């Protein structure tokens, strides 16, 4: 008898495999053309991502949602191959639900982290072959401890805790430095920012990433296209509507560019 309430095991028993065999790939260098970020603010954790999907130097799509809700209190922001990333999110979503419903208790926060690691580990051959690398950021609210948490991963499944913030994707080097600067020498550390200021900073950070990274989509006001921003607090995950982002962008972001 396997582990109780393990949905992935159940799928595997039915012949399911995640990702594609390694031999298919050509072993090209990996690009994770995107920018995602997460940082803790006063009420919880903010997770944001740009909306551009690229294939080489072509813009495939400008309305991608890279910040995906896994359950009421956790989201996974994805950088890497979208097909694999979406599949992972689907597996995780069902795994957490299945665990809760069979075992009659929530999977612990650590249990959720471990589930992601395992999926990434299963995906290593595809990642190395260049056909399925995913480098996610996982953020959530740990209800047992009453605190927000951020974790980031490498493609092999190692997990690292981002104490204050985490970034991933091709635009991330640009904003990593900014986050460090803001958090250390800003008017106040990130984790004391009120909700509105946190959203403003997220918009500024993604705009900066778009400035220096062609694979990161910025704000497109003509098309009223804003990044995806999600806030996770003790109450749950909340997606910030464009109607809220628009005035913030216009009053506090645009005049600096």
């Amino acid at each position, binding site marked *: 008898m396997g582990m109780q309430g393990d949905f992935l095991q*159940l799928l595997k028993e039915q012949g399911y495999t995640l990702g594609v065999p390694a031999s298919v790939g050509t072993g090209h260098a990996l690009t994770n053309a995107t920018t995602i970020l997460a940082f803790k603010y006063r009420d919880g954790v903010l997770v944001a991502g740009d909306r551009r999907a690229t294939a080489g130097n072509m813009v495939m799509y400008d309305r991608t949602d890279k910040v995906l809700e896994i359950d*009421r209190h956790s989201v996974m922001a994805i950088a890497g191959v979208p097909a694999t990333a979406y599949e992972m999110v689907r597996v995780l979503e*069902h795994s957490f*639900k299945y665990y*809760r419903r*069979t075992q009659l208790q929530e999977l612990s926060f650590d249990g959720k982290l471990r589930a992601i690691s395992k999926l990434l580990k299963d995906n290593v051959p595809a990642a190395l072959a260049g056909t399925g690398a995913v480098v996610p950021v996982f953020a959530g609210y740990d209800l047992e401890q009453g605190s927000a948490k951020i974790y980031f991963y490498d493609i092999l499944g190692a997990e690292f805790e981002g104490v204050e913030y985490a970034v991933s994707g091709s635009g991330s080097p640009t904003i990593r430095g900014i986050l460090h600067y803001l958090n250390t020498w800003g008017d106040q550390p990130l984790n004391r920012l009120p909700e509105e200021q946190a959203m403003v900073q997220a918009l500024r950070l993604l705009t900066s990433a778009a400035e220096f990274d062609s694979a990161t989509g910025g704000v497109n006001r003509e098309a009223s296209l804003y990044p995806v921003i999600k806030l996770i607090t003790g109450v749950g995950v909340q997606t910030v509507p464009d109607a809220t982002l628009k005035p913030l962008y216009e009053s506090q972001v645009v005049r600096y560019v």
Partner: protein
Amino acid sequence: MYEEPYRWVEAVGNRRQYLDEQFKQGSPVVALTYDGGILLTTVSKGTAKLYEIYDRLALGGMGHPTDLEKLRFSLLEMAHVEGFNRSPSDVTGSRLVKYGIAPVIKQAFEEVYKAPFIVRILVAELGVKPEKDALLTINYDGTFEETVGCAVLAATPAAQTKMVSYLKEQMPAALSLEQAVDLALRAWAIGSLAHQQEETDQQTEPDPSAGKAGAVTAPVPSADVLMAHVRGIAGGRTLECAVLERQAPGTSKYRSLKPSDLAPLLPKSLQSVVAN
């Protein structure tokens, strides 16, 4: 000896008798639709009898806890695999019941060398629109029934009929969650009292005609009597209520009502039962 058809029919008949006997101590389950979704109610002793199956599916059961667990797990497995491989909106109660567990229960019931499932199951499905709400009940022999509005599980067909007719009679066109809890508890009491009545009728067998006649003409107890009965029994047990709420945030619509959620919905006389 069961090879002969006659023996087999006899054996199945014995099974029915044996199984009917097993439900005597069981607590009825009531499900009814209200203006915000579907409510399930029962009074349980020791093990829970109401469960979440999928985003829009809930389960209520009577019978042996181990058998119920086994079937609950098959429902969970089927629902989640289907929801993952196809989509959550393809997971429907009627398919899970008709092609999933009903045939399994029937087979176990008819294989007279093996143990049958000692269960009666109720599956509630919350539709996207209220008119799509569905309630399914499955008996220990695999027969299933699909109804709308209300459904119950009870120890005997007679008790079940009493509960359903009480619900049909008392159910207004639209009811709030508070009214639904009140009505569901009264219907539960009707079922529970009917079980007790049948028990005493059996013990006073010597005069069956008189007992039968009395039972048929007995008036429906008043709401106060019914609530007093619930209070009397629920004291040492757990009053279980769960809802499938159409307006709940997120994809999972099931919510088990905690004592703090339940207390304000209950009539005053019952609030102390939940508090301790």
